[in-house]
């Protein structure tokens, strides 16, 4: 029932795919769908109008009618327009020439300012700064208290001279804080203000007073990603009220995404700088407009995924594994176990899977996905003897039964695991044979509907542009051909066909094949095809 923006757009584009020529009626139909999809995703109406207007104009122009596949061309246009609205470049904090750099937070009640203050402090600390938090929210009961605790967790000093709960003058607190910061040599001051309504002139004036008193280098407007049509009014009010310099989207880990970001960015013309994506201190990231556009269009967020992997992975262990695979040995269950361990360190598997392209189709499965499933798998592997782990071929019926008993599960589960594992092994072998990453197995074949929106935008993937030179270009070429499911390189093409065949055989007898086969295949393809690009980005 719930249709996210990307779900909708994906279906719309599916209808367009394969049309050789688009009539004006086709375009109108698509535009209507886009309009509705955007409205359902809480993009503000004026923004929707502007967006559909420019997409329509471009869709009816030469560039589409001349294109080989007009449907894909529209997808490309939509993507470009999205990136455009979201602000193009990633914007970073502008630090003051002479410290301290002052960052002021403003927003509606319950937008998440205090929590964000802590996260920001934590993040800045990791970047090597000495942040100080200032409790200028003296309105809400115990906001000061909350900031103190949050500051403690982030390891930042908290300046809170007033007890809050309606007592004290926030402007004075903010002013005094500047001297404290200078004397204690903090190079960044984060001022947490009380939540206020855009139409509350009195409180807006107070916010302006605080701003004028501390002369902030950045004024961040914190807004809930779940906000609806009111986003425009609120953003405008704050823009006029305090003239913020950047936007922070909070609660982006919820299942509403895209709408508010688009509206605020478009209406105010201010960039979205950060996204807050969870309840713990570390769930905070720089906002990448291009990646967000990819998310909206259901193209996954591979780059973030890779970054996350890079942060947590065990160099030595992985190196060992890589060598092992390269030297022709098979990837065995012991390796699988160690990899599972690093996987767990990367955080929520659900979140990582959510970043995969095409995942919105499997959203329900993903949402009901139980993280403990990983533990269950681990239990199965740990119920095997070391020999069995090193040589999974040993596993006969009775051994499987024993393992199932040991892991407290059924033989069917063990069988499933082994089958999947076999496929993974095959893939590893292919990787080796192909000398790194082979041209992904059977690209468009199994990816189905999401292939269309996924591919044309590939050139837009961050990291390909500036980097890689010739290599990048060839990859791009490959990317475009993918919907046909064939690689330009004859050797690879043969390999693909073979891989596809193998997989098809492996899957055929399986009943649930349809249910999750799509995921698996989709994942593999995308991964293999996109990874090299990601690498180019480093």
């Amino acid at each position, binding site marked *: 029932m719930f249709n996210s923006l990307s779900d909708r757009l994906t279906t719309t584009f599916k209808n367009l795919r394969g049309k050789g020529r688009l009539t004006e009626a086709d375009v109108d139909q698509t535009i209507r769908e886009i309009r509705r999809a955007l409205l359902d995703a809480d993009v503000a109406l004026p923004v929707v109008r502007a967006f559909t207007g420019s997409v329509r104009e471009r869709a009816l122009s030469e560039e589409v009618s001349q294109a080989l596949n007009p449907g894909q061309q529209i997808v490309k246009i939509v993507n470009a327009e999205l990136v455009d609205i979201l602000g193009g470049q990633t914007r970073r904090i502008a630090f003051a020439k002479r410290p301290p750099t002052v960052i002021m937070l403003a927003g509606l009640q319950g937008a*998440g300012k205090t929590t964000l203050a802590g996260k920001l402090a934590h993040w800045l600390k990791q970047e090597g700064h000495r942040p100080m938090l200032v409790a200028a929210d003296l309105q809400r009961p115990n*906001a000061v208290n909350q900031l103190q605790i949050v500051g403690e967790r982030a390891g930042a000093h908290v300046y809170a001279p007033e007890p809050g709960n309606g007592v004290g003058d926030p402007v004075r607190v903010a002013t005094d804080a500047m001297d404290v910061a200078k004397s204690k040599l903090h190079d960044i001051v984060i001022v947490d203000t009380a939540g206020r309504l855009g139409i509350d002139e009195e409180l807006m004036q107070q916010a302006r007073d605080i701003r004028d008193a501390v002369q902030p280098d950045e004024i961040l407007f914190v807004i809930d990603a779940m906000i*609806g049509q009111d986003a425009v009014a609120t953003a405008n009010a704050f823009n006029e009220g305090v003239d913020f310099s950047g936007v922070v989207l909070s609660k982006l880990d919820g299942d509403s995404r895209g709408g508010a970001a688009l509206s605020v960015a478009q209406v105010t013309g201010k960039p979205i700088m950060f996204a807050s994506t969870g309840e713990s201190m570390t769930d905070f990231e720089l906002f990448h407009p291009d990646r967000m556009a990819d998310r909206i269009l259901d193209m996954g967020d591979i780059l973030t995924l890779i970054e996350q992997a890079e942060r947590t992975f065990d160099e030595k262990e992985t190196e060992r594994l890589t060598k092992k695979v390269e030297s022709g040995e098979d990837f065995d269950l012991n390796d699988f176990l160690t990899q599972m361990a690093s996987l767990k360190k*990367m955080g929520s598997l659900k979140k990582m899977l959510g970043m995969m392209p095409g995942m919105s189709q499997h959203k329900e*499965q993903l949402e*009901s996905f139980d993280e403990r499933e990983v533990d269950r*798998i681990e239990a199965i592997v740990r119920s095997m003897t070391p020999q069995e782990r090193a040589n999974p071929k040993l596993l006969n019926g009775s051994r499987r039964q024993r393992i199932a008993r040991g892991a407290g599960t059924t033989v069917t589960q063990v069988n*499933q695991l082994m089958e999947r594992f076999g496929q993974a092994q095959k*893939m590893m072998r292919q990787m080796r044979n192909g000398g790194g990453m082979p041209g992904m197995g059977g690209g468009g074949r199994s990816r189905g509907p999401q292939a269309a929106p996924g591919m044309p935008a590939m050139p837009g993937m961050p990291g390909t542009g500036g980097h890689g030179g010739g290599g990048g270009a060839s990859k791009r070429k490959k990317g475009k051909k993918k919907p046909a499911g064939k690689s330009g390189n004859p050797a690879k093409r043969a390999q693909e066909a073979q891989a596809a065949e193998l997989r098809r055989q492996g899957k055929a007898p399986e009943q649930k094949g349809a249910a999750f086969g799509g995921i698996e295949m989709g994942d593999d393809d995308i991964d293999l095809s996109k990874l090299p690009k990601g690498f180019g980005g480093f």
Partner: protein
Amino acid sequence: MESVIYAGIGVLVLLVLIVGAFLLAPSRRRRRDSSAPATVTGAPGPDTGPGEAAPGDADDEPAGASAPVLETPTEPTSRLARLRDRLSKSNTTLGRGLLTLLSRETLDEQTWEEIEDLLIMADIGVDPTTEIVDALRERVRVLGTRDPQALTELLREEMVRAVDPTMDRTLAVDPIDGSPRVVLVVGVNGSGKTTTVGKIARVLVAQDRSVLLGAADTFRAAAAEQLSTWGSRVGVETVRKEEGADPASVAFSAVERGIAEDLDVVMIDTAGRLQNKKGLMDELGKVKRVAARPLGDDREIDEVLLVLDATTGQNGLQQAKVFSEAVNITGIVLTKLDGTAKGGIVVAVQRTLGVPVKLIGLGEGADDLAPFDAHEFVDAIVDG
């Protein structure tokens, strides 16, 4: 060397996918199994809900005028006046826009589309909007009317029908058989749960009911302090435990104490959670189950109030759905209606779930809480 690292990362990411892929399928099956018992436990909820227990009590809820312990809530009449005042302020553009549109000479396609747009701008949602406008269109055609006054009347009727005034919007807060009523307050982060609990407690105190608060938000920093600050203002005690304690145990203790002290109402504040966090939603289910335990075998929590931020867009519907699945909500509190937000999502939520909006929050003031009234809500929008 570097290439090795990248290849390594590649392997790792690959593994995420492989593992993820075969994990998704079993989990789906498992989910189906586990969802069955969940619905069984949830089912008795509405039966023991507010309907039979305390009819007509929220209507005069703010009318409890007697002196509370420490602070005096304002008169209910002024509260309602302020609601209208505020609503009309925030909805001026909508109401006026509608009137100008409706009083045009001809009602052409574009006019209807603009009416649609105006309703969409109020967060009413595409589907309910289409429905309201279609119904209005039909009636305008049948009646053949062009009179703006009559049109406004028709629109008002359609809107009222969409909001459905016949729903039971009373709060179940009359103690039964000597044991207290338990009110559980749930919602996403930052929707205003703690504030709402504090405000409801004030109203209850003003009605001469004995109240106990349970700070089951053991997650957010200083949430328990925030709640006890609210409580102490009106002389209500708060049951709390250290940060990070099991919220279910806090709820249990609160209810247990409520029974021991023979109180009227126990209100439990929970931590904010986004509805797509399965683990947290499960935790909420546990809080509800455990909190009901001291009440005896066949009783459920009497009221589960979902706090919904009026600025929330179409995601509000999803919130209501998921929370309803997890803890079977019996009512909605629409907060922050004092801003420019119109809270139109309520229409969609009521329509799909049949859960009534019971209270509305109108600002940061301690007494800015009022019972929801369908006619007034619509009047304020249409009259502009």
